[in-house]
């Protein structure tokens, strides 16, 4: 062999050496250096996880009556990985599917695109609540609909229809923003959480834990023969028992509905803060949220700013409270030593302060009155005078604030509003900013003394204030959650929130105020005697008629019962309902009837064991 040839062969051998060196080096880096990473990737490759949604817990009333339970619904799912690969065929199948489910092909494609963005490869629900006939049809024609399956899903059901709609809230898919919150750690897009009301506030108990099925799949996403690797069954959510009494709740809602005017009511245990009823009118059907809504439904729920059916007027409706506020003025005047229980004030029908005349409602004149009588007949001049006397010392604001006006009610549901307690600081800062035409004046305080003017308070706040006086100074924490139970009814956790704070209220002051309120409700000449005069249970109650600019008068009533040791408080307000005795007081009567009617028939009361 010639030297030239030998050189060429040697070069060929050298090339072989280099090429094999490359292969060995590459093999070494893949398997020895980075093997672990690739192994992890391979393991990730062959399994697919499906989450199996857990049924949420039921929501029960205090007697165990279900307010929210679950029903199973058949949902139509499409597995995008099994759809025909051919574009035209896929479109035809989806169009056919859309026709069968009464949706548009565009909507189906949107849902699929959304699903792909969220969890690629996972089945996408096209429609819930499909009928059995459609399921049978699809099963018979399975070949024409590859990748289409029917899945049982849990949907919230409301056996009592609209009852307690405002406090129950609804469930919905967790939003991208919510996913970043700590309390929703571990959830995945598509999981459902409580979005409002009790469902939201007690979500962590109600939610349950989704189960997990891990399946071994091949490259086409098909389960392999020995496919099921892990199955962790879903853990159903816990049942939540509310303090709500379905009877009281229904009576309150019916009372509001019968007037046909927007309004709200709160019924609460004065000692524990347990809410027996919280209602608002107009209301809505919570089941509407379990189905796709029509535009008309959306408009009615969200766009109607006047009726605003989603607004819970009992806790977030803020209004001047009219004469129901006189209880707070009385407490402030007594506790600050402004007056004694028997201090008489002459009611001549009006007083004039700084050139402005403040009149009694309806032009009445009561002559010399003391506190009890002033509460009974709702003498405005008596309280005008107190407001005038306290205009510069802040006592009215101090005591109102202690009793919960102008601050968050501490409720266990979202939506509690602080409202507005007019004060010198508030008015003067507005004036300094040029947003009002005058600084704080006696007139502001005189208006506040009878619950008019700029005051903004909710029925819940009034209920808290009345309860505080009734129970002798404990500012309760209002709540609807009573306890968490498992499916067998064992109590897992009880909610007994500590009082927000204690206020010193002299027993004789409390007694005097309650006497005044009792006379107002059940003594002749009392403002609501016509309503409560014949009611068999002792009631201490106060009417209120709030003037709102641009509206008819707003009707208020706050009742404590049974007198003299009240256990419950009911606050009712009805927008444009006229005088307190006209609409709110009869509504309060209906609520009390429901409560005490049930009690007299021997069932357990809200606070049977520990009367104050």
């Amino acid at each position, binding site marked *: *062999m010639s030297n*030239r*040839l*030998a050189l*060429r*062969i040697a070069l*060929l*051998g050298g*090339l*072989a050496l280099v*090429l*094999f060196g*490359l*292969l*060995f080096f*590459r*093999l*070494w880096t*893949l*398997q*020895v250096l*980075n*093997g*672990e*990473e*690739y*192994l992890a*990737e*391979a*393991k990730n*490759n*062959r399994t697919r996880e499906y989450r199996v949604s857990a049924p949420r817990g039921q929501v029960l009333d205090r007697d165990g009556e279900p307010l929210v339970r679950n029903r199973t619904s058949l949902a139509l799912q499409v597995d995008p990985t099994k759809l025909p690969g051919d574009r035209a065929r896929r479109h035809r199948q989806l169009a056919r599917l859309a026709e069968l489910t009464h949706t548009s092909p565009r909507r189906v494609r949107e849902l699929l695109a959304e699903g792909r963005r969220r969890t690629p490869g996972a089945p996408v629900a096209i429609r819930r609540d499909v009928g059995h006939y459609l399921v049978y049809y699809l099963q018979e024609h399975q070949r024409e609909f590859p990748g289409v399956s029917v899945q049982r899903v849990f949907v919230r059901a409301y056996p009592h229809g609209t009852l307690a709609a405002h406090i129950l809230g609804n469930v919905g898919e967790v939003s991208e923003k919510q996913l970043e919150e700590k309390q929703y750690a571990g959830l995945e897009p598509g999981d459902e959480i409580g979005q409002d009301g009790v469902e939201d506030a007690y979500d962590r108990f109600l939610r349950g834990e989704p189960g997990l099925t891990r399946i*071994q*799949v*091949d*490259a*086409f996403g098909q389960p*392999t*023969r020995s496919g099921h690797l892990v199955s962790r069954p879903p853990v159903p959510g816990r049942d939540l028992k509310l303090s709500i009494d379905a009877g009281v709740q229904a009576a309150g809602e019916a009372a509001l509905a019968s007037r046909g005017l927007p309004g709200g009511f709160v019924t609460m245990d004065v000692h524990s803060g347990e809410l027996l009823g919280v209602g608002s009118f107009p209301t809505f059907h919570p089941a509407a949220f379990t189905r796709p809504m029509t535009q008309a439904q959306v408009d009615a729920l969200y766009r109607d700013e006047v009726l605003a059916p989603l607004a819970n007027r009992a806790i977030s409706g803020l209004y001047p409270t009219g004469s129901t506020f006189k209880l707070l003025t009385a407490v402030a005047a007594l506790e600050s030593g402004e007056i004694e229980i028997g201090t008489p004030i002459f009611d001549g029908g009006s007083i004039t302060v700084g050139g402005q005349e403040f009149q009694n409602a309806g032009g009445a004149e009561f002559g010399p009155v003391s506190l009890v009588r002033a509460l009974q007949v709702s003498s405005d001049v008596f309280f005008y005078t107190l407001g005038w006397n306290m205009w510069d010392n802040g006592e009215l604001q101090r005591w109102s604030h202690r009793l919960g006006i102008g601050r968050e009610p501490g409720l266990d549901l979202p939506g509690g509003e602080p409202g507005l307690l007019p004060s010198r600081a508030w008015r003067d800062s507005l004036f300094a900013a040029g947003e009002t035409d005058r600084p704080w004046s006696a007139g502001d305080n005189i208006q506040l003394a009878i619950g008019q003017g700029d005051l903004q308070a909710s029925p819940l706040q009034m209920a808290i204030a009345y309860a505080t006086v009734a129970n002798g100074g404990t500012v309760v924490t209002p709540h609807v959650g009573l306890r968490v139970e498992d499916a067998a009814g064992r109590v897992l956790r009880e909610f007994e929130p500590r009082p927000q704070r204690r206020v010193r209220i002299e027993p004789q002051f409390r007694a005097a105020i309650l006497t005044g309120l009792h006379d107002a409700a059940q003594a002749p000449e009392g403002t609501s005697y016509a309503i409560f005069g014949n009611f068999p249970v002792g009631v201490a109650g106060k009417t209120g008629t709030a003037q709102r600019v641009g509206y008819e008068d707003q009707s208020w009533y706050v009742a404590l019962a049974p007198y003299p040791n009240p256990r419950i408080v009911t606050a009712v307000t009805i927008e444009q309902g006229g005088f307190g005795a006209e609409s709110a007081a009869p509504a309060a009567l209906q609520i009390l009837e429901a409560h005490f009617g049930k009690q007299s028939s021997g069932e357990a009361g809200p606070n049977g064991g520990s009367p104050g």
Partner: protein
Amino acid sequence: MYATRARQARPEAFAVRPGIAERLGLPYMDAPLALSAVALAAFGVFALEQSTLNDVPGSPGYFADRQAVYAVLGLAGMYLLARVDYSRFRELRVGIYTFLCASVALVLVFGFAARGSRRAFDLPFFSFQPSELGKLLLVLALAGFVIDGARRGSARQRTVRYLCLGFAPAALVFLQPDLGTSLVFGVITLAVMYVGGVRWTHLATIGTVLAALVALVLVAAPTVGAPILKGYQEERLTSFLDPSGDPSDAGYQQNQAKIAIGSGEKTGRGDRATQTRLDFVPERHTDFIFAVIGERYGFGGAALVLSLYALLIWRALRIVTLSKNSYGILVAGGIAAMLLFQVFVNVGMNLGIMPITGIPLPLMSYGGSSVLATFLAIGVLQSIHAQARLSQAGRFAW
């Protein structure tokens, strides 16, 4: 005494009676070459058996059994070829070349179409893929032409002639379309010319033209709207540059193969292998058999296979240097280059450093034609080796 006499009674030299090994001609064969080929084929059958158990319902050994039969047939063919003097093929070069061109042309017309390309004749029991055997035939014929035409025409004319002879069947195979095999044909042509002493300047020119062609085919032609490669071919050729893209295309295959091999780590995953058992790696019994080895048997197994190929190619190159005549040098050189190219491109493609070209791994990828043809090529190498040994021993036939 008696014992001493007996010891002295040794047979005379002329009375030597050859043993069985000698009669079979085994001493004239290159044992490492044969053993590495047999080991690779056996390992291939074993890996196929384990990885394709469930592929054909009702017949778990479908692929492995067939492959084993072809390997045994190939082994027999290797042995028979080893006993033939390869120099006869030089005389038959025109016939061989004609048969080669005819078979790859006919397959275009009468071939059995699989996945959009006509590559094989559908015979009873067997679908015969002429281009696989064609690789060996091209080596044999082209080497003959080079030797024969060494004195005809100018150097430039010769270079052009060899190029035309080699690239004609390559073009026919390309039309099937079978890009991978046509590349092998091209490499064989260049390798025979290289070993045959074509001038460096010519080789450099050819290299430049080829580089320009590749640029034209991959970049220029598609941009002016006249693509030469089919879409999938181009995608396969370029996707290895960016393999982690869309899981549904060629880059996906390459990525899955890489994951498969990487996940084998040092000792392999055995039956817990998933990548190559659950269809993540496509074509695992043919083009991606090396990924199966990598995943199931780890670095140990894959390195063993690579070492066996290194041994095989080293022995082939050694035979080039032993050959008794120029024809043997060219043939052995062409076969060595063919094997080297196929091993490097296939394993490189499994490892993600070469494009997917559909070139099978010699002796291991499932496919009767390929296994048979490779064994026959090794048989020709053995023949060259045997003839060299026999000529050294002064004997010319056995």
